[in-house]
């Protein structure tokens, strides 16, 4: 039981770290440009497909990973320059609709190119084994590697935002766009870079998650909605909030699915305990979100509007 618990904790951590890669891009784009981007899930899907296609073609997962970063950031930069740029001064309704249209275009385009059958990504050889957890159960080495890689990217992102000149400009852009434009920062280029950065993070998450699940059209949408829940909980625009929210959602979701059926089984018969437990577990993160909003309408780390 203990080792199973530990395994689920690690799964929760993995899902939280992957969510952070998605949510940080969303929240950056919202914080700096004031844009709500539904098509963020499509960039995740593009990353996964690019990785799967290149890995299958060249036989190298690492080239696939590079391809996922390139494809997602290039797609992000192009979409920003062609379409998204026209939406910054529009209201949220227009942004929602235009990015919803982008989802239709990306999903249907991917289906056109790759067909409806899922692709599969295999893990590089030296990461295929398992590790023995304290308590004796085995855990896939690659999942641990994903957690480590995800955490490394998260640390890198915090350093980028906190310590570099680009990060200073991004933070300045969040605080006052008019002022940094007046100080001579090329704001159009900054926006394209931020958007491409968010896209690259989403694409990377897609490639990572693609190794543990199948790569298929529509894979980005459930993650996108979870990422929305994350940034709503954390406070829209806050990277720190995105981190806390991601871990909270990752752990709540995974542990809820694991523990609730067990908890109900203590006083219900097994079949209805599983039914009620899993139904409640699927709603749990939304209940947490509602609670957070009820107490703090602008999220845990959101600026009070």
């Amino acid at each position, binding site marked *: 039981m203990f080792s199973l618990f530990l395994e689920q904790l690690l799964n929760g951590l993995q899902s939280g770290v992957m969510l952070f890669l998605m949510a940080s891009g969303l929240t950056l784009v919202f914080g700096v440009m004031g844009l709500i981007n539904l098509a963020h899930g499509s960039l995740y899907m593009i990353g996964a497909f690019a990785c799967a296609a290149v890995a299958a073609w060249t036989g190298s997962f690492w080239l696939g990973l590079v391809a996922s970063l390139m494809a997602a950031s290039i797609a992000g930069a192009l979409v920003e320059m062609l379409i998204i740029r026209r939406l910054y001064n529009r209201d*949220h309704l227009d942004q929602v609709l235009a990015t*919803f249209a982008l989802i239709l275009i990306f999903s249907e385009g991917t289906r056109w190119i790759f067909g409806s059958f899922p692709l599969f990504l295999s893990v590089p050889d030296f990461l295929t084994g398992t590790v023995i957890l304290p308590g004796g159960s085995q855990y896939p080495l690659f999942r641990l590697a994903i957690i480590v890689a995800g955490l490394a990217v998260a640390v890198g992102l915090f350093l980028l935002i906190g310590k570099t000149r680009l990060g200073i400009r991004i933070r300045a852009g969040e605080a006052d766009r008019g002022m940094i434009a007046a100080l001579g920062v090329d704001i159009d280029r900054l926006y394209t870079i931020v958007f491409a950065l968010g896209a690259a993070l989403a694409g990377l998450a897609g490639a990572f998650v693609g190794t543990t699940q199948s790569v298929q059209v529509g894979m980005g949408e459930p993650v996108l909605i979870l990422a929305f*829940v994350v940034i709503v909980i954390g406070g829209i625009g806050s990277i720190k909030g995105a981190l806390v929210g991601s871990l909270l959602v990752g752990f709540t979701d995974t542990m809820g699915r694991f523990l609730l059926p067990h908890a109900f089984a203590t006083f219900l018969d097994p079949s209805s305990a599983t039914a009620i437990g899993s139904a409640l577990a699927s709603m749990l993160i*939304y209940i947490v979100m509602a609670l957070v909003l*009820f107490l703090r309408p602008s999220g845990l780390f959101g600026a009070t509007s």
Partner: protein
Amino acid sequence: MTMNREFLINSILAIALITVPLIALGMDEPFIITLATKVAIFAMAGVGLNLVLGYGGLVSFGHAAFFGIGGYAAGILASHALNYEPIMESPFLIEGTTQMIVIWIVALVVSALVALVIGAITLRTSGVYFIMITLAFAQMIYYFAISWPAYGGEDGLSIYVRNGFPGINTLDPISFFALCAVMLAIAMVFSAVLIRSRFGLALQGARQNAQRMTAVGIAPFRIRLVAFVISAMITALAGALYADLNRFVSPTMLSWHMSGEIMVFVILGGVGRLFGPLAGAALYIILEHLLGGVWEFWQLPLGVLLLLVVLFARGGLVGVLAGERKHV
């Protein structure tokens, strides 16, 4: 002048909705009657959403929740009635039904209660938060429907015989179309009366300037909550009809794609216009039928069209045809 042009367009839309199925009946094309029924139902779902989106300025991205609740009201009540299983026996007996009127009342009551809870939480927020939270609540209900095994879970629930309405053979396509068209007309008249009423003016006032509304002694929160509930009820009624049209209900009706589609009907047609949802739903179904017939990946050109409408043709179909709206 522009009001006259919009009136003309509205008349053409209404006449087309009625005459196309009649011509199809004469030519013995029941499929076209089904398409027209779908237009009427989707338009009605859009009329519901338009109330909060167009007049209230509240971008609800979760109206599929109410559409699906209506659908499941029809599916669950009918399945209990057809299997002769009461829904509950204690403390008092509740049985299933195949009567549309009862189903509609249940759909209205349940959707109103759910909308009251969701609205009370989401309307405390605004802007992007409101969009994302309405979406999240709809997802919550969607995942609940998928993981709750009693009513088909992911596979959905079939309604083996379309539910009945007194005096009408609902299995006859043109009769069912007539029923849906009348319901749409009632929803539109109700919505038109509502937005011209004191309540409707307050709702539009709260969209334009919430502070000024507060200053004259009207609390925007309560006005918006009532509008949200009414809007959900209209969309739920459309959902009940949609389940009966397909004789099937599944979590797809609750999915966020459905929320997006209902929003697309409103926007394609024209936000905040009485006939906007009808124009949008008709355009959507015609495009689906025409493009879907030639190309498997018809949603790609649909996406491009939607993108162009958002970027360059604000005001939608009715807006483009009728010109700028007079300021009220």
